[in-house]
């Protein structure tokens, strides 16, 4: 393995971190915005190169942070799956920032814009570090960074609603990280390790000897609940609609596309690398996750139907998609985990596209985000309309789109697992129908004729080409994911084998 590939994980984290730290020092307003996107493109190129290299040599490597090997110093771990996730997250980050550029310029006060770019870059660094880290406490520190920056990104767009939404978001996320910290402490108390490989060995022999079983279950419950609170899983998703409907488009897109997925990647590591599927199944954690996912899919989709506000509806459908991932992880077999990873990627590309679309539609409509205001907005901003339509149809499961491939993988994984097969298939079918029930009317509304005598604010003729580029790239990525399912699944499966 060449010198470069070996150092790519560390370089990508440090490059994005130092570029975030330099942001406030840049004099001109737009410089920070361009620096952030350039760095993300560099990290994107590095991750693609790393993924290709790792796929050819078929192995994952651990990177010692400092002079001391595994149980003593920190460690990063990179495999094909981590590289694929880093690639997709970087791509989604760049496209969301480009798509939301117009809204950032309009919503956020000029002297605060380079601090907003700083927060977005720190959020991106936290997610990339969560993908690569091989140490639980480092994961907790970056969970905390993501929590702080995501909350303040919601407040960047100044309005009463956004401050209240950020407050509720911050309460829920500090609750989540408190639970995660307690889970890590209990785990360290009974095993004495913080790094994931020695931890797995220690837990395996603990289960063998039957020692400290209750504290082990307690730490698993705490960590899974903490991560589900932070990723707006069903019982704890109250903060999500307010936060995503009152932030700027870029914030909502990045939070739904990236931040929720970062916690899911940590959950995947917990399942595969720390506890192992066997111990989790024996502790009934898989069933807990499965039931939470199933209920979440149905109930959040139902509450999405009742929403009059476009952004709130899209936010509720995000919560439903997160429950898909929980359902997949709860199936307790490798096929389920692979389907979960594919769902992470599919949702990471679909939801930001919808948010970018709705942002432009609201600007093209009468300025407020109720259905009556964006009636006929699709005709004034056709590309945004297409983005919203394709995103909606992909979530409803139209073939040749990412959503359909994700549901297909989920279905095939459900067939090969025990009692969960029929509930999972039932949940999939019903939630797809519910998706259609609230997305299709939305699509019809935006392509409808605008109401007579409706006064439309003047269409901003500036910076639409940035928005065009991001929507087109999103569409291409979506169709690619939907059609080239074979290659993506091959990378995911190989990554999962090398993961633990």
């Amino acid at each position, binding site marked *: 393995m060449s*010198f470069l590939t*070996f*150092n790519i994980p*560390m370089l990508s984290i*440090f490059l994005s*971190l*130092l570029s975030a*730290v*330099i942001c*406030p*020092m840049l004099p001109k307003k737009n410089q920070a915005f361009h620096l952030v996107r350039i760095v993300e493109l560099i990290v994107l190129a590095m991750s693609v190169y790393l993924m290709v290299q790792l796929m050819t040599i078929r192995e994952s490597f651990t*990177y*010692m*942070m*400092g*002079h*001391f090997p595994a*149980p*003593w*110093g*920190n460690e990063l771990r990179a495999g094909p799956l981590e590289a694929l996730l880093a690639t997709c997250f970087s791509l989604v980050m760049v496209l969301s920032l480009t798509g939301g550029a117009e809204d950032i310029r309009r919503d956020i*006060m000029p*002297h*605060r814009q380079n*601090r*907003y770019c*700083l*927060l977005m870059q*720190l959020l991106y*660094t936290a997610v990339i*570090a969560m993908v690569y880290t091989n*140490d639980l*406490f*480092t994961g907790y*520190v*970056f969970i*905390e*960074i993501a929590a*702080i*920056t995501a*909350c*303040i990104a919601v*407040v*960047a767009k100044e309005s009463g609603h956004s401050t209240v939404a950020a407050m509720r978001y911050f309460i829920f996320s500090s609750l989540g990280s408190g639970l995660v910290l307690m889970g890590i402490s*209990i785990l*360290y*108390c*009974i*095993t*004495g*390790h913080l790094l994931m490989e020695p931890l797995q060995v*220690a837990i395996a022999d603990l289960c063998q000897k039957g020692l*400290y079983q*209750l*504290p082990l279950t*307690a730490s698993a419950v705490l960590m899974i609940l903490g991560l589900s609170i932070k990723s707006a899983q069903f019982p704890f998703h109250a903060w999500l609609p307010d936060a995503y409907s009152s932030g700027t488009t870029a914030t909502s897109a990045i939070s739904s596309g990236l931040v929720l997925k970062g916690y899911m990647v940590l959950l995947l590591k917990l399942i595969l690398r720390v506890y192992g599927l066997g111990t989790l199944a024996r502790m009934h954690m898989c069933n807990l996750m499965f039931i939470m996912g199933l209920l979440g899919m149905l109930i959040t989709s139902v509450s999405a139907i009742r929403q*009059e506000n476009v952004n709130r509806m899209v936010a509720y459908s995000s919560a439903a998609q997160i429950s898909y991932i929980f359902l997949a992880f709860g199936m307790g077999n490798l096929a389920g985990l692979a389907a979960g990873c594919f769902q992470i990627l599919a949702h990471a590309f679909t939801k930001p596209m919808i948010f970018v679309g709705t942002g432009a539609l609201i600007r093209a409509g009468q300025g407020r985000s109720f259905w009556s205001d964006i009636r006929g907005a699709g005709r004034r901003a056709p590309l945004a309309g297409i983005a919203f339509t394709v995103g909606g149809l992909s979530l409803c499961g139209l073939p040749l789109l990412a959503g359909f491939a994700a549901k297909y993988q989920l279905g095939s994984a459900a067939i090969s697992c025990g009692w969960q097969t029929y509930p999972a298939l039932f949940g999939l079918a019903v939630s797809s129908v519910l998706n259609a029930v609230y997305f299709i009317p939305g699509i019809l509304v935006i392509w409808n004729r605008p109401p007579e005598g409706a006064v439309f604010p003047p269409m901003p003729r500036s910076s639409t080409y940035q928005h065009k580029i991001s929507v087109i790239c999103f569409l291409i990525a979506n169709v690619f994911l939907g059609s080239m399912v074979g290659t993506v699944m091959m990378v995911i499966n190989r990554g999962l084998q090398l993961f633990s």
Partner: protein
Amino acid sequence: MLEDYEAYLKYVADHPKVSFEDFRKKREKKPRQAPSVVEEYDESEEDAAMEAEWNEGHIHRMKMWQRSYAVLSVLVSAVVLVFFFQVSIQLPPFGDPTNPDLNEVTERYIEKGLEETGATNIVAGLILDYRAFDTFGESTVLFAATMSVILLLRRPRPVKDSPIPRDRILQMVGLVMIPAVMMFGIYVVLNGHLSPGGGFSGGTVMGCGLILAYMVMGRSRLEHYLTPNRLTGVTVACLCTYGVLKGYSFITGANHIGWEVPKGKPGAIFSSGFILPLNICVGIIVACTMYTFFSLFSERED
């Protein structure tokens, strides 16, 4: 305030169309004539009514939710308490030398800690050399918090000087104490790797020294030296030096190349490789952060 709310709840039972805000304004103006409120309300345009309609659902659901909230919370906390009591009973015995967490990992930290990191205070050696990536994430958390508080609280308009009460005695005593506090802070930071303390606690003490200087000398005199941009500049510079130093040691460590940093004589101040400069960087970051928090929170609320 609460009785307003109860009165509003009773009032809204038979006049569902009235929103809380209008109710409060009406009550202040005409506390007793309830019926006149209803007519006055009708002329508002259709849009606000639609908005109120949407909010009425929220408020109704909010009331229903609050009642079940109280019962639910008592139940949940009882279950959680019993569960955690059981867990804490079954944990490894407190203080027992054969606990699972006193294993070969801690043996190496204690035995080889001195010669590997050169720091006699093993915790400082652990933070800044064995697990340095956590501490780097840690300083980034501080930096993110500073930037967020600046984004939240800083007013674009220049804020007039906060009239902190000028008390001669306090001022004199403050002036005498400032050098002592700063000296103690610098001592704790510089001796971080020899005695208990280090970047975080020393930085906080230095931060408190700066806060004391702010209170005693007032904002205007201190603003000459510690302007907000200069503070951010210093924090950014320290974070970059920390990143470069640690980046160098990560890359050389992982690829087993590069120049071995001299550990120096244990017990001397310039002794343990990068740990001293890192401690100074972390100390300055923490001091600037605490001072920024203080100066932002103490701006007059006009």
